[in-house]
Structure formats: C-alpha cells, structure tokens
C-alpha cells in the first residue's frame, strides 16, 4: 500500500457544529496529523458546493484517503462515498467522523470540551483511515417478485400496483378472506361510500389479476435471506410451503383498542366502540335516540401518548350518519381537540354541525363519567369552554379508541429482524428520508402497521412502498456494501468454531488441497463480524473493520503525540 495521503473536510453544518465546535481551530490541528496532506472546512459539506470541493481536492492533492467530519454516517455516508467514487477514489477508502449528533449537539453547554472531543475523534478517524483498504462491491441478482404481508386495503393496493407494473406478487393474508378491517366498516369518510363496495371492487381486481397469487389463512412462518433473495416459508393451517421472493412489503395494519374498564365498557351493554357501532349499522342498522360519543379514550393519555390521527373523523362520520338516518336523535361528541385537518375533513366536520351534531370539549384532568346501573343512563361531563358540568341522558355511549399495534408485530419483527418503535408499531428507517423503508434493504412498510393512517394516506403509502420495491426489482440487481468477512486460509486451522456462529449460515468448511479450511460466501455474509471475534486463530478478517483498524483508533486516542 503506497503512503496514505489523507484529505480531511470538517463541516460547519451552518450553526449546528460551527456554533459549538471551533472548526477553524480543529482544521489547524488536523493539518498537523501525520499523512494529512490537505484539510479544509465547509459551511455545508453535504451541499453541492461541499461535494464539488471534495471532488476537486482528490485529484488536486492526489488524495488516496478522504475523511469527512460532520453529522452521522447513517444518513450521509452514502452521499460522500458516491462523491469519492465519482472522483475516481474507491469508496471504501473513506471514513466518516461524527462530530455533530455525537459531539456538538450533546455538548452544547461545554463548547471547549466539544472542540477537544472533535479533535480527538478526527485523530481516531485519521488513524483508522491510514489502514483502510479498497474493496469491490459485487452485484446480487434480484428476483422480480414481491411478498406482500397483509390483505387489507393497503396490502391489496400495493399488490395491485406492483402487478400492474409487471411484477409477480404473493399476497399473504392470515384470515380466511381478503379485506382486513374494512370488512367490519359500514361507510367511509370523507366520501360516505360503502366500505364493502370499495373493498369488494379491490378484491375482485386482485382475483382477476394473473400476476397476483393470494394465500389465505396463511402466516409467514419464517423469512430469511437478504434483498433480492428472500426465502419465505408460508404456513397455511399447518401446511408449509416455500417461496423465493426479491422484496417484502409489511402491510399488516393495526387493531382497534378495546378499552376494558373504561366508561363502563365491558360492564354496560350499551357502551360500545366505534367499530362495534359500524358493525351494528352494517348489519341491522342503528336507531339510537340519545347518543354520546367520547373521543380520545385510551389515547393522548400518559400510558399511550400518541394521537391515532383519524379516530376523530370516524366519530364525526358515524355521528353524521346517525343524524342523517334519524334527524330527531340527539348526538353529542365529547372531544379534546377535533382533528379535522385538511380540506375534506374540515368540510365534513362542518357538514356534521349542519346536521345538528353538537360538540363538547373536555379536558384530560376532568374526564366524563358514565353513570347508570346495569346500563349507561347518564353521562356527566365538565364542559371545559362553558366552565360547568353538563348532564346528558343517553341510551347508547360510543367510545372512540385509537389503533394499537397488532399482537403479532413482535413475532414478525423478530422474524424479519426489523425494529419496533417505543409504541410497538414498526419503526421506519427515517421519518422524512425513508418513510416507507426499513433499515434492512429489501423490506418495505406501509399503512397502519407503521402508524395509524386513514385509507387515503394508507393507500398513498402502499403505492410509495410499491415504488420503493419496484426500484431493485426493475433494475434486476443490487450492489450491497462490500463490508463482508474474509478467511486468511494460511492462518485458518480448520477448527470449525466459526461455522455454527454465523447467524446467516454463510460459512462452511471446505477441503483445500488436503486441509480443511473455512470459507465465507460473500453474497450471503452480512458483515456482522461475530465470526471474526470467535475465531481463536484470528484468521477471519472483517473488511473495513479489521482488528488493526479498531486498535489503531484506540491507540491514537491515548497516544500523547499526535
């Protein structure tokens, strides 16, 4: 390896770093580090100006290592690696040093220490960069077919879109029929169209579409492999079948919270949830005379802090339907902020006022009380804006509850190895950059499985997930990161300790001119490095995270000379 010529680019990130880390002082310090031949600072290294500065500096100072000290590799490593590649430098000769999220932002109150820490972190980065080696990425073919988990309106929409684009789709639904939650719903806001008509039409389209294979009362038992090559095992009432797909879309939706123990639910027969109300309307119709609906039941409370986004509109819709079918009825809607955002919902909210639905605002500190023996007879609520208690006689109380994660989310998350958020919904890679993708390549996410969403937004997300899945499938191959393990066959004594360690079964022992030697398949290896740690002989080298590179960082930190 010829002498390392390192270029360091320290970022201001506007005020985010610049206001707390003395960037010019850091650049001066960095210039003194061995092998650093060029160091400069930019206002926004990730901007076009910053990128072209890197591309210009590489040939100009004939750099063979590049370090960017700015935000976090998780979002910007790909961008800077691409810049190095475009300037002719192997993108694995690039090292990222995090001096924003893990330095300036967390040590705002001690700018002095933040500057010292930034210097040391870059010194560690330089130590590692010196030892980095160029790596080549390999192309892995992608099977142009997608496994969609969940046969609700969202799953179906994703499946239809991909099928229309020409891809083969496997639609897996654990219930006996497609349709999901919409099967229980009577009418839909804001158009008041029949839920059954909508979902019926979509199910029909799925049936007619040659490219979609539907698997009913089927659960995905296991799914291993990686983007382009997922091996899924389906379990249809005990009958197992194997499936090879390129991408997976999680559209398993969510379920309505049953608020046991609140407002007499479970005790009084005439205290039901909105979904139960819809089921009644759908089956035998509804003729309630005095109806009180209570919103935010079990939502925006300390134990469940989130707002489930569209339950207000469900309540307003059902209230309007009741008034339309029975104008003399008295419908009260108790709420703590009426989330009728946007154009359609605000119009619908006003229509409900015209119909005579009356709204009462209550506060978390003074919850309404449902009174009666054997059944709900009265609701007492402190009218926050009137500053007095109002008593309403009722013959039915409808509780509006939030959507909560499905019970089997845990299981799916373990199976697909995708994270859950603190509330239990699936956690997307990045709220704004990758809203419908998981960190793991090839697995996408949409609908209420991600976060409670109404139908229009859910279907938009379904299309978005379909678009993201279509990208690798249409291109036909993916080039995963070249961070994989490598066996140094001279050192390998063939003891086989590594083979069972690999969770992805990428290691197998092979005979090599009379000697057993361990072999790691580049395509399967995900680069976790556990085999390297386990190997007693130190024969396994982790690309881009070699032991010498890690140790160099530690040494650099504590060595007094720089």
């Amino acid at each position: 390896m010829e002498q390392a010529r390192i270029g360091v680019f320290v970022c201001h990130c506007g005020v985010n770093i610049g206001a707390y880390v003395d960037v010019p002082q850091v650049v001066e310090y960095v210039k003194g580090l061995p092998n650093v031949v060029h160091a400069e600072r930019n206002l926004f290294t990730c901007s076009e100006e910053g990128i072209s500065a890197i591309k210009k500096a590489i040939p100009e100072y004939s750099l063979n290592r590049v370090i960017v000290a700015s935000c976090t590799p998780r979002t910007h490593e790909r961008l800077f690696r691409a810049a190095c590649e475009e300037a002719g430098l192997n993108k694995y000769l690039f090292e990222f040093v995090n001096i924003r999220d893990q330095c300036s932002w967390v040590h705002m109150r001690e700018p002095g220490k933040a500057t010292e820490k930034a210097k040391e972190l870059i010194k560690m980065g330089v130590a590692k960069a010196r030892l980095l080696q160029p790596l080549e990425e390999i192309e892995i073919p992608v099977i142009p077919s997608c496994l969609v988990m969940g046969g609700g309106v969202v799953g179906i929409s994703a499946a239809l879109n991909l099928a229309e684009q020409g891809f083969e789709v496997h639609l897996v639904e654990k219930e006996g029929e497609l349709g999901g939650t919409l099967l229980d719903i009577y009418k839909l806001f804001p158009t008041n169209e029949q839920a059954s008509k909508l979902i019926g039409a979509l199910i029909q389209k799925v049936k007619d579409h040659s490219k979609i294979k539907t698997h009913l009362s089927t659960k995905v038992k296991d799914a291993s492999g990686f983007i382009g090559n997922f091996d899924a095992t389906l379990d249809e009432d005990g009958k197992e079948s194997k499936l090879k797909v390129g991408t997976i879309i999680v559209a398993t939706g969510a379920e309505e919270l049953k608020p046991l123990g609140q407002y007499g639910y479970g005790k009084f027969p005439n205290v039901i949830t909105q979904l139960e109300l819809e089921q009644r309307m759908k089956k035998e119709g509804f003729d309630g005379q005095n109806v009180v609906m209570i919103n935010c039941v079990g939502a925006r409370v300390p134990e469940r802090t989130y707002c489930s986004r569209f339950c207000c509109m469900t309540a307003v819709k059902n209230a309007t339907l009741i008034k339309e079918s029975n104008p003399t009825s008295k419908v009260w809607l108790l709420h703590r902020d009426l989330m009728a955002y946007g154009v359609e919902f605000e119009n619908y909210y006003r229509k409900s006022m015209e119909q005579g639905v009356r709204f009462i605002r209550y506060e978390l500190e003074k919850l309404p009380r449902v009174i009666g023996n054997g059944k709900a007879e009265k609701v007492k609520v402190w009218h926050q804006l009137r500053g007095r208690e109002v008593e309403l006689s009722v013959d039915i109380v409808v509780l509006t509850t939030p959507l909560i994660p499905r019970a089997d989310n845990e299981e799916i998350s373990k199976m697909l190895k995708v994270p859950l958020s603190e509330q239990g919904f699936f956690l997307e890679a990045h709220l704004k950059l990758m809203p419908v993708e998981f960190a793991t390549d090839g697995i996408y996410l949409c609908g209420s499985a991600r976060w409670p969403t109404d139908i229009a937004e859910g279907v938009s997300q379904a299309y978005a997930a379909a678009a993201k899945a279509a990208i690798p499938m249409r291109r036909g191959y993916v080039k995963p990161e070249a961070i994989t393990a490598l066996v140094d066959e001279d050192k390998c004594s063939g003891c086989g300790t590594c083979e069972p360690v690999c969770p992805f079964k990428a290691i197998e022992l092979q005979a090599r001119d009379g000697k057993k030697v361990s072999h790691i398949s580049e395509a399967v290896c995900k680069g976790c490095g556990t085999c390297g740690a386990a190997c007693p002989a130190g024969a396994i080298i982790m690309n881009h995270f070699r032991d010498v590179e890690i140790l160099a960082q530690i040494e650099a930190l504590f060595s007094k000379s720089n």
Partner: protein
Amino acid sequence: MNGQNGHKSVLVIGGGIAGIQASLDLANMGFKVYLVEKSPSIGGRMAQLDKTFPTNDCAMCILAPRMIEANSHSNIDLYTYSEVEDVSGEVSDFKVKIKRNSPFVDWSKCTGCGLCEEGCPVILPKEFDQGLGKRKAIFIPFPQAVPKKYTVDKREERPCKAACMDACPAHTNVLGYIKLIAEGEFQEAYKLIRDTNPLPASVGRVCYAPCEEACNRGQIDEPMAIRDLKRFAADQVNIEELEVPTVTKTDKKVAIVGSGPAGLAAANDLALKGHDVTIFEALPESGGMLRVGIPEYRLPKEILRKEIGYIQKLGVEIRTGVQVGKDIALEEIRGNYDALFIAAGAHGGMRLRMEGEELPGVIEGIRFLRAVNLGEKVEVGKKTAVIGGGNTAVDCARTAKRLGAEEVKIVYRRSRSEMPASAEETAAVEEEGIPIEFLTTPTRFFPGNGKLARMECVKMKLGEPDASGRPRPIPIEGSEFTTSVDTVIAALGQAPETEFVKEFGVSLSKRGMIEIDPETGATNIEGVFAGGDVVTGPAFVIDAIAAGKRAAHSIDRHLKGEPIEVKEEGKEPEKLSEEEVEDRKKRFPSQKRVRLRDEPIGERIKDFREVSLGYTVEEAIEEASRCLAGQIEGCIECHECAKRCEANAIAYTMQDEHIEIDVGAIILATGLDLYDVSPLTEYGYGKIKNVVTAIEFERLTAASGPTFGELKRPSDGKIPHAIAFIQCVGSRDFKHKAYCSSVCCMHATKEAILAYEHHPGTKSTIFYMDLRAVGKRFQEYVTRAKEEYNVTYIRSRPGRVAVNPENQNPIVWYEDTTTTETKNMEVDLVVLCQAMTPRGSKELAEMLGIELNEYGFVEVPDKLSHPVDSTRPGIFACGYVHSPRDIPDSVTQGSGAAARAAEVIAGGS
C-alpha cells in the same frame, strides 16, 4: 391504461421535496424524468425552512443530498427557471412544450463563484427571505441552490443607450454608481468608481465630463450631473480609513516617470497586480497638473494628498524632487527596472515671442500657477492681464484676483465660441468680476522704471479656419492701442518637455511628443511605454487616467510575457432616436437637474476656499434618481458582472428557449403559496412592524436568513423574549380560506422551540383552537415544547392586535375560552400562522385539462382507492398542491405518485 407503445418518461412539474422524491424514485426505476421548476433552483418551500418538525433536524441537511442526487442523476433532465407552456395528447403520449426563461448567463460556464454579485449595483428585495433580506439583480435564490448557477433578473430593456459609459475615456460604470447613490449605498458607489478610477474625488471636481454631454437624458430635459455625483460619492468616504486589499506580490519592478494622473493610474493598477512600482517626480510634490496646474479653490490639495496616499498604501513608492534626465538618467532607471512608463505630462509653457517679453512682470501661466500651488510668494500688480482663452488662462485670472490684483482681465485673440475653457469656467470667471476682451492680442510690452508698465494690443478679425479647425485670427490694420498694465500672465498652452528622452532613443513626433502604438502605449523601445500629456499634448485628467490604465494593462502582460491583446475599446456613444425621445418624454416626467451650490461670490474671492459646496445627501439622491436607466426594475445592464466574471459566462442577448418533449405521464407537485393576511386588518400585519408571518419568522431564525440566524424583531432589532403565535390566520375562516392548512399547529410549536433554542428563557404563547398534532411523535413533540421549552398553549383565537406606541410592543386581545376571561397580553413579537394555498394550480389545471376543488387544490375523483390520481388519466398530483400536508406525508405521496406513473408507463413490461 396499458402503455405498451407509450413513452417511458414522466414530466414532473415543481421541484420541491415532493417533486424531487417522485423524480428520484422514477429515475431509480430506470425511467426518464423531466423535472421542471419555475425558480432558478429546485428545493421549493422546504429550502426556506430552518428546522423541520418533529425531529428538529435542519431542513437543508435533509434536502441538500436529495437535490444533489436529483441534479446529478443520469435519468433526470432538470429544467429550472422554466415553465410548462402547453400540454397536448393523451395518457402515455403527452406532448409538452417547456419554456426555459433566459437567465442571461451561460450555465455551462457559470461556476456559481459569486464574483459578479459583489459588483452588481442593483439591489432588490430577496423573495427567498420574503422580502426581509436583500439580493442583487444577478443572484442565486439561496446559498445551497441546486444547480448553483447565477441568474440575471432582467425585466425590461434599459430606456437609455448608456452613452455616458461609452463617452467616458476610462469607461467608468456610471450607471452602476449612480444607481447605488439613488439606493443610498454611498460606500458601495465609491468602491465601484474606485475599481476603474483611482482618483474619484479629484476627477469628481475637475473632469470636463464628456459623459454628461453624451447623456441620453440630455435629449429629454437636462443631462445627469454625473461628475458632481462622483464627487458626492467620494466625499462620503474617509479615504484614509479605507482598508487596502491584500495582494500577492510578483517579483517584477516597474518605474514610472511623472506622478500626474497618468502615472498614478498606471501605478495603482500595476500595484494591484502585485508589481513593485516606483514613481520618479521632478517637482517637490506629487500629483502632476492636479497638484500644480489646478488651483486650490477647484481641487483642494488635502483631498488629492489623501487619494495619492491610498495609492502609496498599495506599496507604490513616490520619489519627489528627482528630475529624470537631470538627477538620474533614463538609462540607469531602465537598467534596474523590468519596465518603464513615461508620463511626464506637459509642463512646459509657450512663449509669446514678442518684444518686451523678458521684462519682469511678464510671467508664463503654468509657472505662475505652479509657484502659487507650491506655496511660493508670488507678487501680482494692481492691473493684471491674462493672455489666452483656455482653462489655464481662467485659472490664472481667478488666482490673480485672489492674490489681491484689483483689476484683472483676460485678453483672447478669438471670440467667445472658440474659447477652449468650459462654459462653467468662463461663467465663473465673469461672475467674479473679470472681464474678457475678445478678438484682441498683445503685440508689444513697454518698460517703466525697469519693469513692465504698458502693453500695446491690436484688434483681430476672424478669417479662414487654420490647422486646428478654428478660424485664423487676422490683425486689423491700424487698430493698435496701448493700456497700462503691471503684470501680464501668458497662458497660451502647455507643451511637453521631452528633452530627457531624446538621447535614450525614444522616437518623438514632429511636435516633440513621444510616439506610441495607440492600442498598447508601447514606444519603439522594448519595455518602455508612455502615456498622458507627454504623448497627446495637454489633454484632460480622465484621458490621462485612461492612458495610464491602458499602459498598465500592457505592461502587466509584457511582464508576464503574454502577448498584449487589446481590450476592445467599446462603441461610440449612441443617441436616442426621435421616437425613443418622444416615448421617454411620456414615460419619465421632465425634471430639472439639481444644481451644485457655490460659495457666495463675495466670500469666495477673498481666499482659496473650495468654490463649489457639493451635494447634500437629499440633493444627491434626488439627482441620482433622475437617471433613466436606474428607474427600471431589475438589471440595468451596466455590464459590471460581465466585467468581473472570470468564466465570461454573462450573455445579455441570450434568448428564452422553447423545448418540446414527449412523456407517458405527468406529476403535478408545485407545492404551496402563502396567503396574504393583510386583509385581516384586525391583526395589523403590514401596519404594526413587530407583527410578522410564520415564514418571515422562519427566515429570521435561519442561518442563511437576512439576520444570519440571529432572532431579532423588525422594529428595533431587539431580541424578542416574549412571542405570541396566532393560529388559523385566514384558515378555518369563511371570509378567507374555510379549510384547515394542516401544518401550522406543528410549525408554530417548532418555531416556539427554535425561539427558545436561540435565546433560552424565551416565553412563547400559542393561541390555538384545535391543536392538530396528528403525525408520528407529534404529541410527544408538543409535550416537550410545554415542559422543556417554556411554551404555553391558550385555547383562543385572538380578536385583534393593538400596539403600545412607546415601545412598539404588539398587544394581543383574546378571550381565554377555558376561563372565559377577556384579556390582553403585551409581547415583543406576534407571529401570524397564515393560511397556505395551492401554488400555480389554476393556470396549470387549464393547461393540463384537470379539475380543481373549490379552493384550487387538485380534484381527486376517487379519493380513497386512487388518492393521487387527478380527473384525467395519466396525470397525478402529490404534495401540498394535492392537499394540505406536511413534509413526511409529501415525501410519501411523492413516491406514491411515482408508483402510479410507473404503472402507466411500465404497461406490464
């Protein structure tokens, strides 16, 4: 909708975050994308944001990588500063006409370096900062613009021919500095002048102003007072405090003979190029004719000294009292300097060649002025006669008057119209009680007790024009007459003294002046250049400066061994045609020129104080605003940017481009506009300074904003410690916009948090009706705002905002609906969260043939099962133009629209 044979390409209209996301997804799928954006840069509304909720990460950190990816993606053709003109055809076969507005800059050459912007004199409100900040006529919308290319905001043709700049020998950017004065930017005006003319204060006083004669405004009422405005700009600056630009030194040395305007100009330019310059000045004081030829009352010595002092600060050494050819030989200088520039000027006087000329009392004009200007004691008799008709003669006469001569008169052999002195000077001398005897010339001088006593003159009549084109004066027989006189000053003109160069071998013309190649200023000897009066004979200051600059340019190239290519000389000053004059007369009301006031005549002749008083600020601005070019909006084509652009990318004549493309599908993603909230008069927007809109507040906190991230309130720049946010201003209101704009509750919360982060301890109050925090992790964000960032929420929609006259604090009147008390709250700043409307949807809808709903958002026929489809197959919509939504939902819907478009153009392939 099977697009088997359709085009595998998509048109995306609108380069905001939604449009970019849709384009990236389609491009990554391998389809061709045409992304059309009206502004010169993509980025849309999000680029204006400082931080985005709920994660508070900086908007630019999310947006920049996507903009770069979109700009460099092989499948995406980016058309910024462009609009869709026409759309025809049907799904999978649309024909689209795109108009690329001419940015008047060749984007293939422009590197976005920004040198042009510094020099541009036209200052306009910056749309990106909602008009709070300023930008130039040549601009990029925001620092991280993609593509980072400059655009010239040229809105209408310049109403005049800029004849002034062509007429000026040095081609000073007159348009530019007059515009800057009109805008009150006096320092900038001085700097702009200084870029071409190293002696603004002097030239601003004595220049003969050929520019004013050529000024097109002259054809309408009166020409612009260009010279007086130049003087005004120079007077606003303390030249001694100007910091000197740091220059990278070259190892070349240049010698200059003569520290007159030519020598000084050359020295200035060569020093700026890094060469080491030494000037040899024969006289004890530097400045040449400016110092010794022009009297104090016209050009105060103190001003000239300061201007020369600045040039010296550039590293120029001036050795005074060293006469080349006497104290030091030209040979020797040429030896130890790499180049030589002869600018000795024309200090020799002309002789009368008549009897009695040597009598004491007869003095040569130039020598007389030099003596006075150098402070020597000069005696002037009671009756003094000055012979000659040029500026020098007038200067001698007025100087003699100031030295105490009681009766001073000028004797000139031709008539008034032939007098070379300017009309102003002639008027000034007559005003000071100095008569002029025309058609008279002296013939003999008679002594009286050893010194001059009487002079005999003869009357003249004008004959045929002589070599100079002026009629030849012919003495009239027998018209001799004698008058008594004590002093006679002969101011017949000047001639260069070129003895000292003769033996050096420099070729001289018949009249004894140095011959040079007019283009480059080079003499016949290699490395020796010449310019100014020594070459042309007595000319004007500005001609000498122009010659000095030309020579400096040639010397610099000579020192660098590069061929001396000639800078194009520029065209002749053009006149306005008849119709153009008529048209201008209609457009611009006739307005008299603002005259310079002078010291009262009685006072000014007593001493050598400066005669003209110069403009006051108001007068200067009033005069500067008369300039025709300066009155149009946008670029006035003063060519300053073209001059500074190293990539010479400026192209004033660039035309709009019309492009036709074929696409299979179209995605509308034009985003949002902000509703004008001034009709809600009760909130006082536009009347009360400290009532701003949410987007203006955002710009005040942004690092790239007008206050560079320092949150200051508009009225007095103080830090606002108490801020009130009023929600639903214009939204949820029958009289304005009946819908809810969806994002303002969270936007206000974020801005309240930002305010706290900028100045911990800030107390924010948000007046809301329904706090619509519906998205992922929004509720937790609001809770954090309450607990950690001192934000209070009051459920009420304030009725009106009054103002406390003492401190300009807005007072919010509101009823706290949870306690039914009507109260008022005095705060430092009120932020109105204004309604947002779909951008550009009306015109585009007509063109695309799609319907809009009652508020102008895209009408979606099948809201639930096909949420991103418009009323026309193959045309989709995403982002705020589809329906009010925040950034995460816009990004998702961008991908959604991409998927639907892919369905159409993939067509089962």
